[in-house]
C-alpha cells in the first residue's frame, strides 16, 4: 500500500510547474503574461498557438535558455528562478531536446551524432555503444548507424534527432516542432514514436502547428495566444 502511494505521488507530481510567470524581453516584447500551468510526470502535451503567441519563450524558459522576469518555474525538481548558470547543464541532462531543424552534425555519422549526447555527459565507451544501438533500434534506424546525415531523408534525420534525445534516458522530452520539416506521413510516424516513448513513462512536451496531429493523437493540448494560456484541454480538443 505504501509502495503504491509512493508510486502514485511520484507519478502525479508535476514535472513542470509555472506559477505566475511573465517574460518581457529587453526589446519590450511581452512574450508571456502571468502563466500558471502544471504538467505532470508521464503526460504527453501538445503546445499550440499562432506565431508570436509565446510558444518558443515557453520552451526556452523550460530549457533555461531564458529567465523569467516574475514568477516561479520548477522543472524536474529544479527551481529555475533561483538556478545558477553553472547548474544549468545538470537540468538539461534530465531532458532530451528535439529540434525542428534536426541539428545533426554533418561531419559525424548517425552513430556518432547520437553518441555525442552521451559523450557530453561523460559516459564511458561501452555504455555509449550499448545505449546508442538501443536508441537507434527504437527509432528504427539500427541499420543506418554508419550513414552520414546527408544520406538520410528529412524524416530519418528527425528520427536520429529523436534517438539523440532519448539516448540519455531523460524524464522529459521537449520537441520543438519536430514535424515542421518532414512530410505528413513521416510526421505521423514521428508522433507515433513519441507516443510509444511516452507510454513507457517519459513526459513529452511537443510544440506543433499541425492541427491534424493534435486532433488525431488525442493528448492534452495547451493553447497560447499573446503570451497567455487560452485553452488547456485533454483529448485533442482545441
Amino acid at each position: 500500500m505504501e509502495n503504491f502511494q509512493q508510486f502514485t505521488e511520484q507519478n502525479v507530481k508535476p514535472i513542470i510547474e509555472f506559477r505566475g510567470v511573465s517574460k518581457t524581453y529587453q526589446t519590450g516584447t511581452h512574450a508571456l503574461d502571468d502563466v500558471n500551468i502544471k504538467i505532470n510526470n508521464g503526460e504527453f502535451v501538445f503546445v499550440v498557438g499562432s506565431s508570436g503567441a509565446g510558444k518558443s519563450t515557453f520552451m526556452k524558459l523550460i530549457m533555461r535558455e531564458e529567465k523569467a522576469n516574475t514568477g516561479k518555474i520548477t522543472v524536474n525538481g529544479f527551481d529555475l528562478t533561483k538556478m545558477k548558470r553553472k547548474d544549468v547543464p545538470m537540468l538539461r541532462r534530465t531532458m532530451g531536446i528535439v529540434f525542428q531543424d534536426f541539428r545533426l552534425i554533418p561531419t559525424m555519422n548517425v552513430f556518432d551524432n547520437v553518441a555525442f549526447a552521451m559523450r557530453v555527459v561523460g559516459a564511458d565507451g561501452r555504455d555509449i555503444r550499448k545505449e546508442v544501438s538501443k536508441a537507434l533500434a527504437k527509432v528504427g534506424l539500427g541499420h543506418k548507424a554508419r550513414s552520414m546525415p546527408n544520406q538520410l531523408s528529412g524524416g530519418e534525420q528527425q528520427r536520429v534527432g529523436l534517438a539523440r534525445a532519448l539516448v540519455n534516458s531523460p524524464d522529459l522530452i521537449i520537441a520543438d516542432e519536430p514535424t515542421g520539416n518532414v512530410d505528413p506521413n513521416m510526421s505521423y510516424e514521428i508522433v507515433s514514436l513519441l507516443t510509444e516513448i511516452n507510454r513507457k513513462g517519459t513526459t513529452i512536451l511537443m510544440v506543433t502547428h499541425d492541427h491534424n496531429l493534435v486532433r488525431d493523437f488525442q493528448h492534452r493540448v495547451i493553447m497560447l495566444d499573446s503570451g497567455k494560456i487560452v485553452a488547456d484541454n485533454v483529448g485533442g480538443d482545441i
Partner: protein
Amino acid sequence: MKLSSIKYLAFEGVRNTWANRLMTLASVGVLVACMTIMGLAVLISENVNLAIGNLEEQNVVIVSMKDYNWALYENDEKDDTASATQSTAESGAENTTQTPAGDKNGIKETDYIIHDEKEAKALCAEIEKLDNVLNAVYVSSEKGLEDAKHLIPDDMKDDFAFLDEENPMSCAAKVTMRDMAKFDETIRQIEKLEGVASITSQSEMANTINALKKGIGVAGFWIIAILVIISLVIVSNTIRITMYSRKLEISIMKAVGATDAFVRIPFVVEGMIIGLISAVISEVLLYFCYRIATETIVKSLGTVVKYGDMAFILFLMFAAIGVFAGVIGSAIMIGKYLKHEGSEFAAI
C-alpha cells in the same frame, strides 16, 4: 571529469586543429614569425651582454698606492711650492737654510703608508673584500713601469729615455668590478681606504656600458611584450573562426547538458597545439638563422653565444608563450561565446 572524457576532449582538440588546418597553418605562420623575432631579440641581447661582459672585464680600474715613489712625487711638488713661497719671503726676511729630515731624498717613513710589497698586497686584499670587486691584482712599480713603456710610441721613446734610470711609478692594484652599474659607489669605497693615493678609471666607458645594458633590457622587454600580445590576438582569432565553424556543435553540446569546461577544453587544446607546433618550428628556424648570421659576423664580433647553450631556454620560452597564447587566447574567445544559448548561436 572522467579519464575517458579527457581523452575524448583532447582528441576533439586534435581533430579541430586538423579540420581547420588552413587557419591553423596561418596562425602557426604568424606565431612562428613572432617567436623567431622574439628568439632573435633574446639572442642579440645575450650577445650584446657577452660583449659588454668582455668590455667590463677590460674596463679595469688602477688604484695607485701611497708608497715611497708617491711620497717622492708629493715631496717634489711640496718642494716646488715651498721654493715659490720662499722666494717671495726672501725679499724682506733673512735667508734661513732648511735641512729636511729623512733619507737622501728627504722622505721619512711616516710620509707614506705602503712600505713594502706585503703591505701593498694587504691593501689589495682589503679592496677585494668590497662587494662589487671581482678581483684586485697587485702590480709592482717595476711591472707598472714596464707596462707604461709598452704604451710609449716608438718615435717618442727618446723623450722618455729617463725612465731607464728612474721609476716614477707607484705600486698599484688592478681592480675589476662585478657590476658596472655600481661603479661610482665602488670608487668612493676604494677612495676611503687608507693607502690609496689615486684612482685611474674610465668612468665614461662605465657609464656607456650601463646605458647600453639598460637600453637593451628595455628594448628587449617591449619587443617581447608586443609580440606576446600579437600572438594572443592571432590565436584568439583562429579560435574564433574555429568556434564559428562549430557553432552548431556548441549549441547541441549546451542543449544536451555539456558543462562550460567540456565545451571549452577542445578549443584550449587546439590553441595549445598551435602554440606547441609554432614553438618547435621557431626553434628549428631560429637555429638555422642564427647559424647563418654567426658564420657571417663571427669574425668581426669575436666570441658569440653558442646556440646550443640557449636552445633549451629558448624552447621553454617558445613553448610557454605558445601555450600561454593558446590557452588565454582561446579562453577569452570561448568565454564570450559560452554566454550564448541555443538558437542565439544561429545569429552569431
